């Protein structure tokens, strides 16, 4: 197992290197961060040359990539160079954004997984019942739903709910503009109140989408297992229905879903990008949108490198978990 993990990590190094190089070339050819400077009053050709030299833009792309890579690996992720913005360091900006997104996504995904798996199992056990039809059609509907529309709808009904609370003489509860910097203060009850108010809406929006995928997947794998030979054998031995379902079928039906959970990272990330934009969270999504709009190559490269590394890690986790849960898969 350890040997397998080490081998996989070694394989992913060249993939990450080629991937980062491709991204670097893309970002480098997509635009000149100094393009706007040319049109500023009082900027001479010499100023432009000096600015280019300061950023290393006068060197060939291979050398620039090499320098970026060396700096990146030694922990110096550079500074944002978007014009007209404060010069922020890339490393804290990306890690802060990742932390913000992580707080939102991890909770939402765990909730979606729990709910999706329970609904999927119930729907499979009671196949073709009213519950099954309801669950299947809801999941299908949510699966075909554009995430940003769900987020917009959830947000606006949240605001209306707040208005109702206010008209009843209560405080506004739900926040639709991101977590307040500095964390939550006050008594225990107040912290809970603020915490749930801040997290509830984006979590619901993210959850609704992921939930659909998990419940569909769990229902399908549970159905397949329930119709397999070893379940029939278990029934034939006279084992009770609940024991067949929980001890024999359920545990095996969890295997594919657990890998989906780790492989889903890319989809979850794009869902988070949209949810964050709608709810005004300063996470990875907002960072990406802003760095693209202002065209900020160092920030984009930091973003892409972190995301790609995380996806590689999650894929590895998916394979390892699969190997642990399913002894038929031999790793190594």
């Amino acid at each position, binding site marked *: 197992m350890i040997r397998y993990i080490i081998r996989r990590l070694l394989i992913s190094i060249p993939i990450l290197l080629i991937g980062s190089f491709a991204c670097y070339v893309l970002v480098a050819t997509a635009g000149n961060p100094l393009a706007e400077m040319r049109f500023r009053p009082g900027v001479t050709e010499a100023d432009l040359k000096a600015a280019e030299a300061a950023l290393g833009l006068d060197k060939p792309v291979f050398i620039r990539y090499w320098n970026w890579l060396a700096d990146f690996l030694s922990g110096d992720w550079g500074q944002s160079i978007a014009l007209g913005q404060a010069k922020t360091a890339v490393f804290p900006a990306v890690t802060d954004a990742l932390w913000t997104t992580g707080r939102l996504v991890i909770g939402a995904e765990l909730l979606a997984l729990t709910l999706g798996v329970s609904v999927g199992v119930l729907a499979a056990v009671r196949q073709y019942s009213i519950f099954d039809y309801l669950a299947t059609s809801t999941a299908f*509907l949510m699966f075909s739903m554009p995430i940003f529309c769900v987020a917009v709808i959830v947000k606006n009904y949240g605001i209306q709910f707040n208005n109702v609370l206010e008209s009843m003489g209560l405080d506004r509860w739900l926040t639709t503009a991101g977590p307040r910097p500095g964390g939550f203060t006050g008594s225990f009850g107040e912290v809970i109140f603020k915490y749930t108010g801040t997290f509830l809406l984006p979590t619901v929006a993210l959850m609704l989408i992921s939930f659909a995928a998990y419940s569909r997947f769990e229902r399908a794998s549970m159905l397949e297992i329930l119709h397999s030979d070893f379940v029939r054998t278990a029934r034939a031995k006279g084992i009770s229905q609940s024991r067949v379902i929980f001890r024999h079928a359920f545990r095996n039906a969890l295997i594919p879903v657990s890998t989906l959970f780790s492989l889903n990272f890319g989809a979850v990330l794009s869902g988070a990008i949209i949810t964050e934009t709608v709810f005004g969270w300063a996470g990875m999504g907002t960072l990406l949108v802003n760095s693209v709009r202002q065209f900020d190559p160092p920030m984009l490269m930091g973003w892409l490198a972190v995301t790609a590394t995380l996806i590689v890690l999650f894929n590895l986790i998916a394979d390892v978990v699969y190997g642990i849960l399913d002894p038929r898969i031999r790793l190594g």
Partner: protein
Amino acid sequence: MANINLASEGGVVNSAPESSSHEFDATKTRTQGQLVMRRFLRHRLAMVSLGVFAFLVLFAFVGPFIWTFDYEDVTSKSYQPMSGTHPLGTTQVGKDMLALLMRGTAYSLQIALIVAALATAIGVTFGALAGYLRGFIDTVLMRLVDLLLIIPQIAVAAIVVKGFSGSWYVVALVLAAFAWMSIARITRGETLSLAQREFVEAARACGASTPRIIFKHLVPNMIGSITVNATLAIAAAVLTEAALSFLGLGVQPPDTSLGVIVLENYGQFMNRPWLFWGPFIVLVSLSLAVNFIGDGLRDAFDPRQTKVRA
């Protein structure tokens, strides 16, 4: 299967040859394609969805010739409510929402169809090549898949649109470049097992070339999963394009799309809800219809899962 039923319904299976041949004559023989077609045509939801999809295509491409307003017409009336002249109201600059929706649907459909067609073509070709030739080519193609899977599609699309062009076909090409990997993996898996079969060996013994074996012998045997995945790729492309455009990083004016229309109007959710719900309903019915068609096709191609009888 129908033959056996007929025979057993007659009670004893008669050993007299003329009687049994009579029974067999009573059943019409159908080709595989006819069977699939029948199963698909009897899938009620898929048929309804096909109707919805056809309606949306007409709405997008024929609608503008019938409807009185053009998407470029700017009336002096900003934010008109729903009325006889403007069934879905007007936008801030006074454009007729219905005309805009037709235009946006047309762009979204064009993008989604191009993405699905390209992704399927690339995915099937690469997947079949990797699975059939194996060895070095397999390794290279599958590493390419791994490579593309670790780069977030939405980020690359945004950078390309920002750096080069926000025309609808650029968006379509970028999305297609990142949409073929799952089809390639599925095709590779099926090719690996199909390539072991005798008919492939026979074709190779006859001297058939690699392209001929792939496109004449392997691909027709995988047509079921290819069609289903191509359909699902359309639905995915509709949603991805809309999400990208909603972030302001996809299709740029003067081109438009359903995502752009939602982006421009979702701020009116509270005061003029029809400006949000109009594009929302078109978007959801488009992706729902395509997903249902895909589901119907899957049931039609895979009789084991079918709930509909042929």
